[in-house]
């Protein structure tokens, strides 16, 4: 298996505190990977490093064998990286489907003059974009809220909307930052089913999640962090039976 993403000795310090310390791991194509760990373990810092929001203090990140150092999030998006957010980042000034359509930004003719004149190519591209966005909203279960305003949508629906937007970009590697946070058991189960369907479409998924039931149900591989370091990595069963993981979670000796 070829690694889609590879980290070497990754470190991120905030004022002397290493939120992520000397972390090396790789993510293989076509799998569902999960990153878990107790609160403050560095999960969110790690995802922000990998998606270009933060710059590493030390170490390297290679995406499809190319160094991502110094690349902004929008440049990483061009290299096939997508993500959703733990705290929702839905554009409240746009309708639901427009949010998803923004996701296809890189696939559309976005030159200024054609847009200004609304040339045929722009109109055709937009029509196609709207169709694909509608399809994606159906896929995530929002078929009845296509033209809804985000302010009228439920929290769970907005989480799905973010997923649809990320998928609209057709990413190769998709980071999901706590997709189940704030959802009830039924909704969490449904998100789990959806994540599997996404992976079945050939997208490599990296899940950062608190909900252990979800993680253990969908993951092929789990990376456990504690204090910014790797505590364990393996299949869900291996990780669950690792004494160090158990003690980190239960606070035992």
């Amino acid at each position, binding site marked *: 298996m070829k690694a889609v993403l590879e980290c070497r000795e990754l470190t991120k310090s905030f004022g002397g505190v290493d939120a992520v310390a000397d972390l090396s791991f790789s993510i293989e194509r076509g799998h569902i990977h999960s990153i878990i760990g107790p609160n403050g373990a560095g999960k969110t810092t790690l995802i922000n490093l990998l*998606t270009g*929001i933060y710059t590493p203090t030390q170490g390297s990140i290679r995406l499809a064998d190319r160094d991502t150092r110094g690349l*902004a*999030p*929008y440049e*990483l*998006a*061009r290299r096939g*990286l*997508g*993500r959703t*957010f733990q705290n929702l*980042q*839905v*554009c*409240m*000034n*746009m309708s639901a489907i*427009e*949010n998803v*359509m*923004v*996701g*296809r*930004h*890189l696939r*559309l*003719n*976005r030159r*200024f003059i054609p*847009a*200004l*004149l*609304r040339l045929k190519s*722009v109109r055709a*591209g*937009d029509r196609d*974009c709207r169709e694909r966005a509608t399809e994606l909203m159906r896929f995530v279960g929002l078929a009845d809220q296509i033209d809804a305003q985000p302010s009228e949508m439920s929290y769970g629906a907005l989480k799905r909307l*973010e997923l649809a*937007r*990320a998928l*609209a*970009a057709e990413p190769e590697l998709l980071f999901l930052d706590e997709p189940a946070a704030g959802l009830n058991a039924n909704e969490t189960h449904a998100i789990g089913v959806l994540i599997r369907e996404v992976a079945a479409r050939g997208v490599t998924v990296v899940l950062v999640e608190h909900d252990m039931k979800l993680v253990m149900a969908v993951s092929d591989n789990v990376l456990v962090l504690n204090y910014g370091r790797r505590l364990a990595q393996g299949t869900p069963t291996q990780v669950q039976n690792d004494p160090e993981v158990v003690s980190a979670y239960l606070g035992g000796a």
Partner: protein
Amino acid sequence: MDWLKRIPLPRMGLIVLALVLAGAPLLFSNPYQYDVAIHVLINAMVAVGLNLLMGYAGQISLGHAGFFGLGAYVTAVLSASYGWPVYLSMPAALVVVAILAFVIARPILRLSGHYLAMATLGLGILISIVLRTEAGITGGPDGMMAPPLSIAGTDLYDERYWYALIAVLLVITVWLALNLIDSPVGRALRAVHGSEVAAEVVGVHTLGYKVLIFVVSAVLAGLAGVLTAHYAGFVTPDLANFIYSIEFVTMVVLGGMASTYGALIGALILTLLPQFLTGVDELEMMILGAILMVVVIFMPTGLVPTLGRLVPGGRR
């Protein structure tokens, strides 16, 4: 009448706008009324551009009168002092405004919120000070003459022709603005407003789009200034006065953020208001302030979006 329903609402608005602008002269009986109408159109042009920046992309500028004044002065200086034909000095002025806006945009648009407001305010004031103090070039506080625009060998003095010219330019501006908003570029701009980080991670180069729309809105303000210079026949540093920057922002907020037609209505109301308040000059600013407060408190999305919500499908 089925074909009527098939025209999308924003395009329908464009037809209505063209008809209103074409029909309005029927109500005008003297040059003064044309003069007021021309000022409405000129302000509307600035407001439509500023609305792209503020209403859609969510970036404030308290310095657009600076671009307005700069456009007016560059064309005046090039044509009056250097003898350029006006049809060349006008586009040259727009190029100068575009270049200045582009150079200043990158550092300035890394800021946001209050910091951006302060930086643009400073920029506008700076331009107005330069226009006032560089008396050797600009004529100082007294301003300078700007030669008339000639079309086909005849100098354009008649208000009616100016009205027609600027009305056509405004309709084109509104058409282009509506097109832009309803395109991948427009969606990217609105996403920058909605969530900058979300826009970034789907591949929107947010700073690039902010710079783009800042330049576009500055050029529209510059175009309005260029037209004002040759229409009025003279320019004064007062054109770049920061009070006008505030007025432009007020037009956008009053008419409705993220509403192109709102910007037009805002420009109409704010330009006409002083006409109705002549004689009670000292009350003008008070009444203006009161209107603004009422709108912001009771109609925070502005006039046109608030009224538009009463009509089904009547957004934008």
